[in-house]
């Protein structure tokens, strides 16, 4: 049996992308290998580490637990889609740099997606809420403390900017 390829059409970071994929191709492999959006990282490939998190129809999900064919007709935002129009880092990404919230950087795209989803719904998260929001993302370098600080810092900056 040679499985069929499937035509898909997916809005990724605001642009429509089309392709033909075998059913077994995961969404993260399609994003990285076909669209060359290598910001989304592949960690464990079985839904444990959170490095591959993307926004799917606006909700943070693991892109290693979805097949690309399932994204047909849907909307995906990757970490590349979090930066500004000019490609410069946004407030949240700046905050990660300012507080040294990354060392090796492998978990960072997933952390940014998780944090972005949190701040969109809850502009004033408590530390506990931040820890809950990134609870599904593993980091082996930082001990999480600076990541939590980065998200607190970004929240404060975003609120300040909104108030101005």
């Amino acid at each position, binding site marked *: *049996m040679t*499985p*069929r390829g*499937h035509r898909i059409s997916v809005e990724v970071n605001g642009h429509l992308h089309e392709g033909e994929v*075998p*059913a*077994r191709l*995961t969404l993260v492999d399609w994003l990285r290998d076909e669209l060359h959006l290598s910001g989304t990282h592949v960690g*464990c*490939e*079985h*839904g444990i580490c*959170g490095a591959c*998190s993307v926004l*799917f129809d606006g*909700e*943070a*999900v*693991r892109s*290693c*637990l*979805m*097949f690309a*064919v*399932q994204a*047909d*007709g849907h909307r995906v935002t990757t970490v590349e889609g979090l930066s500004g129009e000019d490609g410069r880092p946004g407030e949240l990404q700046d905050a990660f740099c300012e507080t040294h919230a990354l060392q090796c950087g492998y978990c960072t795209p997933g952390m940014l997606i*998780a944090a972005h*989803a949190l701040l969109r719904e809850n502009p004033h998260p408590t530390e506990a809420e931040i820890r*809950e*929001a990134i*609870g*599904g993302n593993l980091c082996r370098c930082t001990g999480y403390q600076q990541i939590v600080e980065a998200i607190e810092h970004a929240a404060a900056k975003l609120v300040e900017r909104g108030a101005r």
Partner: protein
Amino acid sequence: MKAAAFEYARASSIEEACALLRERGDGARLIAGGQSLAPMMAMRLARPTWLVDINDVPDLQYIRVEGERLRAGACTRQRALERDARAIRLVPLLSQALQWVGHIQTRNRGTAGGSLAHADPSAELPLVACVLDAEVSVRSTRGRRALRAGDLFTGPMTTTLAADELIEEIAWPIWREDHVGSAFTEVSIRHGDFALVAAAAQVALDGEARCLRASFGVGGADATPVAFPELAQTLAGARLEDSIISTIAERAAAALDPGEDLHASAHYRRHLAKVLAERSLLEARDRAIARRAGQIRQ
């Protein structure tokens, strides 16, 4: 860690999903949220020849209150159920349990029906379904049938569903007594991991703090989640003193047949079953009393 090759079909209606399951035969599997099936496929523990995708079937995603039950379509996202105001008010045990299910990113995709169909003996939603005696509606090309949650699970990852059947709806009873409390608790290696053991309880008290009815159960300590309706029945009419609850929890734990693995011995699981059943009953009782005293308004 890549899934073996398979064929894929996306269903746009319940009828189409049932027809596809029927046509594609025993090698076909439904995929809902895929938060358990996709990792199992990646690890080659599951090798379906066909995946029938029900994520885009609108008739499987709803939450409504009807006939003294809270009803959810099988493909309702766990996160939606966790945050639904009616669910929180009418069946609070659900959102209490859902906070223990994986992480936000997996609950955004994982579904209520998928968790039941997957039938992990330590999973939270199957336990809640058993404790509350939820009704599960099942569809196939042969028609519709309803079964009680307790009759769905037969063993680890094993249900009484036929290969061509699809869970359509889960309906949890609403307890309408004035003073109802519920609680869910579990022990896992890390928060969000599979529970070693989990326990859920719900109690209703009268105006004098006597038990009108109670229900409780334990997951992860036997081949399926186990509810204890006969033991819970003995609490009716009693004041729920700590000692009564402790005795009941002890008897429940003694009736279980826990397995053992790398993470926990059978002895430790039985110990957890007792402690957690006790804790969930105590907490459910205290919440019911607080409602009685008007401390919690919902």
